[in-house]
């Protein structure tokens, strides 16, 4: 990835988090402790501040470094989870970058496994994994010949539907699990931030192509 492209991707990610800080906070206030907006903004602002340094690195290293920054700066459960996602994606990056959609899907799958391990969790617990797992699955099962535009559309749709599906779930991991049945009827804040990041990445890919 060209340095400017990575800068652009980071800026878009940080911008969407900042723009939705309030929303993330109020989702977390409903079923958590109301800090997901501030946590994510702190983490992604820190990554954005490193954008120049990151842009100078090979993509795999940049992803790992950005992941470490999230781990160090977020301060909530989401920090080590998103951090592990990026670090594992960076480690899984093939030399010379992913050659095709299958390569991207494999990287994402590696990241998602790391989130599962770190969170001792899986899809179905009303967390960010309820967006990340379906997304990885959708990309992995896409035909080899899928056009970029179609893959992007699939990613957007999958993320949106998966996010919406968290509303009716009962949380069994994270703070929202303390609410038991009362966690039902609200979107999961981490699922929402995951969906936002998916859209930011899709915007980036579309504008680049």
């Amino acid at each position: 990835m060209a340095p400017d492209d990575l800068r652009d991707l980071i800026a878009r990610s940080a911008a969407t988090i900042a723009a939705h800080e309030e929303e993330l906070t109020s989702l977390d206030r409903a079923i958590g402790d109301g800090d997901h907006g501030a946590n994510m903004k702190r983490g992604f602002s820190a990554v954005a501040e490193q954008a120049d340094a990151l842009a100078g690195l090979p993509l795999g290293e940049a992803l790992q470094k950005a992941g470490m920054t999230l781990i160090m700066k977020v301060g909530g459960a989401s920090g080590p989870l998103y951090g592990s996602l990026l670090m594992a994606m960076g480690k899984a990056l093939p030399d010379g970058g992913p050659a095709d959609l299958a390569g991207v899907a494999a990287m994402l799958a590696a990241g998602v496994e790391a989130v599962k391990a770190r969170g001792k969790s899986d899809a179905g617990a009303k967390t960010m994994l309820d967006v990340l797992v379906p997304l990885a699955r959708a990309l992995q099962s896409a035909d080899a010949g899928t056009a970029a535009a179609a893959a992007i559309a699939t990613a957007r749709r999958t993320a949106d539907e998966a996010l919406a599906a968290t509303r009716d779930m009962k949380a069994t991991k994270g703070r929202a699990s303390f609410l038991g049945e009362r966690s039902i009827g609200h979107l999961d804040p981490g699922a929402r931030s995951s969906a936002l990041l998916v859209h930011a990445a899709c915007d980036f890919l579309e504008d680049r192509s």
Partner: protein
Amino acid sequence: MTDCVAIVIVSHSLDVARGAADMVREMVGNEVPVAFCGGNPAGGLGTDVAAIQAAIESVYRPKGVALLVDLGGAETNSEVAIELLPEAMRGHVTICNAPIVEGAVMAATEAAGGASLETVRATAEEFLS
């Protein structure tokens, strides 16, 4: 002086961590090394991987370090902090599945007797069970 397992207290709240450390010291004096941290990197409620790492390193000894943590994020961030330790330390640091305040006092009391890390952890985890 007996070589004792050290205690690290990791709370979302710096006040909780500090107060629990006070309670530990009242119970075991300075025999058992105790470190604590609390709050996210911005000072609000939450936890801070770098602060957890620093707390562990400040009391590290090969005899062992037992961590007492409160809710989810404190545990996850403590796991990460342990993984970021130098490899030689990692195997001597463990998180107790025990209540933060009561577990810290129990763990420290056991540690004061020179018990192994495994025993200290088991004692903390017995609490309320």
